[in-house]
């Protein structure tokens, strides 16, 4: 350039060359030479410009290619991601033993939620039905309709996804979508594949904004390459230009010389017309062109120089000879830290300290040998501050100021190095991931010619299959051969089937690898490639462990279930949300439910709120504390029987961290009942014991010590309680009885015992007769006996009296018999005396009769002393003169109980002289006339019982009577009868007591019998009604029909109407009979409560009327929840159907008939509401609505028997429910069925 400048600096640019050719012509040769030179300059310029242009185009193309390639890579990665998702689901989905389908899905979604990849990439899951499950990288607790999700792109995501799901192997699409942390739309690409089994849309999506910036970086890089190219162009161009200039200078010199030569030649020649030579003009013009081109070239070079100088890339120009710096651009100075002046002393090697001169020359060798026009090598760049940075050096040879120089472009490759490292790391991670997951991958090609081969088989898969890669590629059968012989045929058939129907290939089965049986799962997606071949992308998974575990699990599950189902205890497992996961047979039976129906449901469904809350409280305790809980729970079985159970609840935690609560219950109902009974009986016993009017106590069987005693006993026996409890049984027995007491105790048994009559001694020493009832029991853990004492002292006396009376009566009878048969007075009176003595148990006695002279005459005597006999027979004792005579006068027996009394009152010496210790005299008086006296006495201490004396009194009067009159006999007989009657009465009284006990039972039996009779009557009635009433009806209808059919021609119109009326009458009658029967059946059929799904119940009931509802175009609205209620199914069925039939009947003729069925629930009742918009009724007739046979309409208007609603009322009352209605005439009616929640009825 300097050269040019100097050569054209004089005067003006054009003047210099023109001077050369001043007024001189040129030869043709010179002219053509100049033409060639200018043409070549021109062509060089054109070529370089074109090159720059084309290079710039190439860059653009390369960038777009790069973009495409990157997108493909991204898509490929996303597809891999989705395939991994599917293989994960494939692993997981088999675990159906531990988890329900829902739980499995939940697990999968939770895992997917955690997956991140690429640039903010994440997984999303939607269902085929259009629900989003995993959205924007988050698992949705409640699925959201995809149509509800706002899409920034306005694209119908779901439709697009569904289209891709239908493609074999899925597909990708690009759109704009928000980021997880940024609602702004970003460009995004997602890969979609369907998982048909779960009807899931699986997607992996990643954002493209980073990709764009990557590409921008690359674009920059490429552009700098272009500049580099340009520089190279310049590098080539500058020497060329210099060469050209040199050449053109040389040419110019040549021209000048030639010109001079010409000038000289012309000057020295004798040529005459020198001025006529034309060369001057032409040449000057062409030279001008060259100058302009050179100028342009210079400008161009300058511009390039500027560009180079301004570039950020470090560009150094240094000498080829000594490597010293000649020039450095702005970028080089800024980044290297050296000023230009500082650089002048340094060589290129100073900034690349890691290489020496020889190494550099070796690197530059190809350049020097002209084998290459640029070389690249990496090295370390040292800045002025000694910091280093890895760089790439691009070296070219060029010319600068005529000198050959190196031009070095130095790129900082720190980032690239890092990026490379990063990529390497990621690759390694990926590789290790692929290595570590037990999944083999393959591509299998099925040609249209039915040839097959592995196009790719991953090393992992070969390892799994136990064959070498070589063998696998050589023949696919080497791989197929590993399939277990038993499954081989099936496997091959499956493959052959896919020839004609390429769809997802799924196989799971056994393979034999190195003599070991393993389980593989193969999954492969077909894609049809251009030439019609099918390419299968497959994944092989070793599921042996899984299968083994599955099998083990199955076995253990089987064992578990068998065990559980064979135990009579109830067993169940609930999950964390207290929904049932398992329950055993016993439980199923108790609640009449099936496991499959109750799975996932909770106790509220089975037991209702009250019980369920109690049970769940315990469950929660177990879940929260992780402790075993032993408790009592009370539930109700499906029949409503109360069930007391001893329950063990325990926490179960699976390896995966899932919590369950298990439970086992043993039926303690009987035990509980017994316990309760025991408690009750204890209380009863206590009351019975404490308040018993009979003395009771408990004594220890070993020590005979009293352990407890009741108030009555203490009172009776006269002891204080403390005192009594220190005593033993022996202390209340007279000494002489103790031996037999001990003997008796030895023989006591557990059984209730009535041990007869004993003598007990009271504290005051008095002896009483008692009856003992006793029974063994445990008292304070020791064997003891409970005793009930019955004081029978008085009773015994009475009994004895009765015995005596009986004896006496017998005697009387004998006397009477004797008197009847005997005419001898003496004989008779002897007998009387004997009997009298026998009655009173004394040894002596006399009977004296009063003679007409009012003196005593001894008729009969026993054991009287001689003196007395003589006194009585010989002394003619007057009635008033002796002791006995006074009793006749007083008409009253005289009884002297002791000897002292005898001595005191005896008037006769004779008597006083005797040792009489007891004396009784009884007057023999008849009709007020004294006839004689009967005396008894004894010389012993025996005292006759008062009763016998009374008898003697009687006897005396009887004897008197007999003596007086023969009628006396009859009179006596009457007396006997009276007596007998009295006795019978007392016996009857005793019997009555027993009867009283039975009365209640009898009454019960009677009423039961009555009930049975009523039922029987009812049944007979029903039976008769159906038989006896319906049979004639059938006859009437049958013959009417025959009349209509066979004699239609003989009947006139009126007759036909009659027959018709007969027939409709019989139908009406039949209906009434049917309804009456149903109504009466309600009375005596058992009601039983059962669980029923009210929604199902209503729907089923309504279905019966479907045709009628359709015919009359009814609108039926059912607002019934799906819940279980407890009710009498038969009754509710009758009630609801009648109400509904009524609603139809009274609504079907109005316009737009409508029936609404509602359901209401409060604390105590369920209500079913049936509302219609029919003709309704006037509420003033409300009372008549539910009465039997009451109708508000004429039969011909609205047919009916008038029994329906009465039946409804009865059916509801049976279950303690109610029915009522509200209505407005012409506007419709609402009927309410009220079902009580607690059903007290048993039958």
């Amino acid at each position, binding site marked *: 350039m300097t050269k040019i400048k100097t050569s054209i600096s004089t005067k003006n640019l054009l003047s210099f060359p023109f001077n050369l050719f001043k007024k001189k012509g040129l030869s043709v040769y010179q002219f053509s030479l100049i033409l060639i030179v200018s043409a070549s300059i021109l062509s060089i310029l054109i070529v370089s410009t074109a090159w720059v242009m084309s290079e710039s185009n190439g860059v653009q193309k390369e960038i777009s290619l790069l973009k495409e390639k990157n997108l493909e890579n991204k898509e490929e990665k996303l597809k891999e991601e989705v395939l991994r998702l599917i293989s994960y689901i494939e692993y997981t989905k088999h675990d159906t033993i531990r988890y329900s389908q829902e739980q499995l899905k939940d697990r999968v979604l939770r895992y997917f939620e955690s997956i991140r990849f690429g640039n903010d990439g994440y997984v999303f899951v939607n269902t085929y039905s259009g629900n989003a499950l995993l959205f924007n990288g988050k698992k949705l607790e409640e699925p959201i309709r995809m149509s509800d999700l706002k899409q920034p792109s306005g694209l119908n995501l779901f439709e697009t996804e569904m289209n891709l799901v239908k493609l074999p192997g899925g597909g990708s699409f690009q759109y704009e979508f928000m980021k997880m942390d940024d609602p702004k739309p970003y460009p995004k690409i997602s890969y979609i594949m369907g998982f048909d089994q779960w009807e899931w849309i699986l997607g992996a999506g990643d954002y493209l904004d980073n990709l764009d910036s990557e590409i921008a970086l690359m674009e920059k890089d490429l552009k700098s390459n272009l500049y580099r190219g340009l520089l190279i162009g310049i590098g080539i161009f500058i020497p060329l230009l210099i060469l050209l200039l040199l050449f053109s200078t040389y040419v110019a010199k040549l021209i000048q010389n030639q010109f001079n030569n010409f000038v000289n030649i012309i000057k020295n020649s004798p040529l005459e017309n020198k001025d006529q030579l034309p060369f001057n003009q032409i040449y000057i013009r062409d030279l001008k062109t060259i100058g302009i081109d050179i100028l342009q070239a210079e400008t161009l070079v300058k511009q390039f120089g500027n560009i180079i100088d301004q570039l950020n890339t470090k560009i150094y120009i240094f000498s080829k000879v000594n490597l010293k710096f000649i020039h450095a651009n702005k970028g080089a100075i800024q980044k290297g830290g050296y000023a230009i002046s500082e650089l002048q002393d340094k060589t290129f090697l100073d900034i690349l300290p890691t290489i020496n001169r020889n190494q550099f020359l070796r690197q530059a060798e190809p350049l020097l040998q002209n084998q290459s026009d640029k070389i690249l090598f990496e090295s370390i760049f040292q800045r002025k501050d000694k910091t280093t940075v890895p760089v790439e050096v691009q070296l070219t040879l060029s010319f600068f100021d005529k000198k050959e120089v190196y031009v070095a472009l130095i790129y900082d490759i720190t980032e690239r190095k890092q990026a490379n490292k990063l990529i390497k790391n990621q690759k390694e991670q990926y590789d290790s991931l692929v290595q570590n997951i037990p999944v083999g991958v393959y591509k299998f090609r099925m040609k249209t010619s039915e040839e097959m081969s592995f196009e790719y088989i991953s090393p992992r898969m070969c390892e799994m299959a136990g064959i070498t890669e070589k063998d696998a590629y050589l023949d696919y059968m080497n791989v197929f051969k590993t399939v277990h012989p038993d499954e081989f045929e099936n496997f091959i058939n499956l493959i052959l089937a896919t020839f004609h129907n390429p769809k997802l290939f799924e196989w799971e089965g056994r393979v034999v690898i190195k003599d070991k049986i393993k389980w593989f799962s193969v999954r492969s997606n077909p894609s049809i490639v251009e030439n019609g071949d099918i390419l299968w992308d497959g994944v092989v998974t070793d599921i042996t462990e899984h299968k083994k575990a599955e099998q083990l699990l199955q076995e253990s599950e089987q064992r578990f279930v068998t065990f559980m189902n064979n135990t009579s205890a109830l067993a169940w497992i609930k999950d964390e949300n207290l929904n049932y996961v398992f329950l055993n047979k016993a439980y199923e039976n108790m609640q009449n439910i099936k496991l499959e129906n109750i799975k996932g449901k909770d106790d509220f469904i089975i037991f209702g709120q009250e019980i369920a809350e109690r049970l769940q409280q315990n469950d929660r305790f177990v879940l929260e504390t992780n402790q075993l809980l032993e408790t009592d729970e009370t539930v109700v079985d499906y029949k409503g029987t109360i069930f007391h159970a001893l329950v063990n609840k325990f926490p179960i935690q699976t390896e995966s961290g899932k919590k369950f609560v298990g439970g086992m219950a043993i039926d303690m109902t009987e035990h509980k009942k017994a316990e309760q009974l025991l408690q009750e009986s204890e209380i009863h016993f206590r009351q019975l014991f404490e308040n018993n009017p009979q003395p009771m106590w408990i004594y220890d069987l070993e020590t005979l010590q009293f352990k407890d005693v009741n108030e009555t006993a203490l009172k009776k026996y006269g002891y204080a309680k403390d005192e009594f409890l220190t005593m033993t049984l022996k202390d209340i027995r007279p000494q002489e009885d103790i031996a037999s007491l001990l003997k008796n105790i030895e023989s006591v048994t557990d059984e209730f015992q009535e041990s007869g009559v004993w003598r007990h001694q009271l504290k005051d020493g008095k002896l009483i007769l008692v009856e003992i009832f006793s029974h063994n029991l445990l008292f304070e853990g020791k064997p003891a006996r409970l005793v009930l004492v019955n004081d029978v002292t008085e009773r015994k006396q009475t009994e004895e009296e009765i015995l005596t009376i009986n004896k006496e009566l017998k005697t009387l009878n004998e006397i009477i018999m004797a008197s009847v048969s005997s005419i001898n007075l003496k004989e008779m009176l002897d007998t009387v005396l004997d009997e009298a003595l026998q009655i009173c148990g004394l040894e002596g006695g006399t009977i004296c009769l009063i003679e007409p002279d009012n003196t005593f005459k001894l008729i009969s005597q026993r054991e009287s002393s001689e003196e007395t006999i003589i006194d009585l027979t010989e002394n003619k004792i007057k009635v008033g003169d002796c002791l006995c005579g006074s009793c006749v006068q007083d008409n009253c027996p005289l009884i002297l109980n002791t000897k002292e009394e005898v001595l005191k009152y005896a008037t006769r010496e004779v008597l006083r002289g005797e040792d009489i210790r007891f004396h009784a005299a009884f007057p023999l008086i008849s009709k007020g006339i004294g006839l004689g006296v009967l005396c008894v006495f004894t010389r012993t201490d025996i005292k006759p019982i008062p009763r016998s004396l009374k008898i003697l009194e009687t006897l005396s009067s009887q004897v008197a009577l007999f003596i007086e009159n023969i009628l006396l006999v009859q009179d006596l007989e009457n007396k006997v009868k009276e007596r007998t009657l009295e006795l019978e009465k007392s016996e009857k009284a005793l019997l009555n007591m027993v009867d009283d006990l039975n009365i209640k039972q009898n009454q019960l039996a009677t009423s039961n019998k009555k009930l049975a009779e009523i039922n029987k009557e009812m049944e007979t009635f029903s039976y008769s009604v159906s*038989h006896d009433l319906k049979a004639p009806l*059938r006859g009437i209808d*049958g013959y009417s029909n025959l009349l209509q059919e066979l004699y239609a021609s003989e009947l006139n119109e009126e007759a036909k109407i009659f027959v018709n009326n007969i027939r409709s009458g019989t139908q009406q009658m039949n209906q009434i009979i049917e309804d009456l029967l149903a109504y009466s059946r309600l009375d005596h059929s058992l009601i039983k409560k059962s669980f029923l799904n009210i929604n199902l119940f209503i729907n089923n009931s309504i279905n019966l009327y479907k045709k009628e509802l359709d015919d009359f175009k009814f609108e039926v609205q059912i607002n019934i929840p799906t819940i279980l209620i407890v009710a009498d199914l038969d009754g509710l069925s009758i009630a609801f159907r009648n109400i509904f039939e009524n609603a139809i009947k009274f609504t079907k003729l109005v316009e737009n008939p409508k029936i609404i069925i509602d359901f209401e629930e409060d604390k105590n009742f369920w209500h079913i509401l049936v509302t219609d918009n029919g003709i309704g009724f006037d509420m003033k007739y409300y009372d008549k609505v539910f009465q039997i046979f009451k109708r508000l309409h004429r039969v011909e208007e609205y047919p009916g028997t008038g029994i329906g609603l009465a039946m409804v009322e009865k059916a509801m009352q049976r279950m303690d429910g109610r029915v009522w209605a509200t209505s407005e005439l012409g506007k419709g009616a609402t009927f309410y069925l009220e079902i009580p929640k607690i059903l007290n009825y048993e039958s």
Partner: protein
Amino acid sequence: MNHSNLNNPILLIEDNPVDIDLTLRAFKLRKLTNPIIVARDGEEALSLMNTCLEQNNLPIVVLLDLKLPKIHGLEVLKEFKSHLDFKKIPVVILTTSADNLDIQSAYEIGANSYIVKPVNFEKFIEVVEKIELYWTVINNPAL
């Protein structure tokens, strides 16, 4: 289909003359080919059956009313079902009673079908037609 089915008689055991007449008419209206023999009580039914047995012409089906004089229908059924030769003959209870106890006991004793006689004559004819169709045409009797 067994052709001989059409020739064997149908035994109707029924005491109500109206019902007998209506049943016969119903069969006649339906142009039944099988002859119908009628027994008016259980005793007669049993003796008729014995006669049929002697002539080797047992009925193809027995239609039995429950409310019969002398021997109750269920007793008749019991006798039939415990008889070596009669027990194979299908017995259709054709009665007015829709009493659950009757139905249950009838099936327990071995009735082959239980049909409640409808009051409506058209329906009655329908029932008769169905009995005929089923028991004499469709059903394959034990041989």
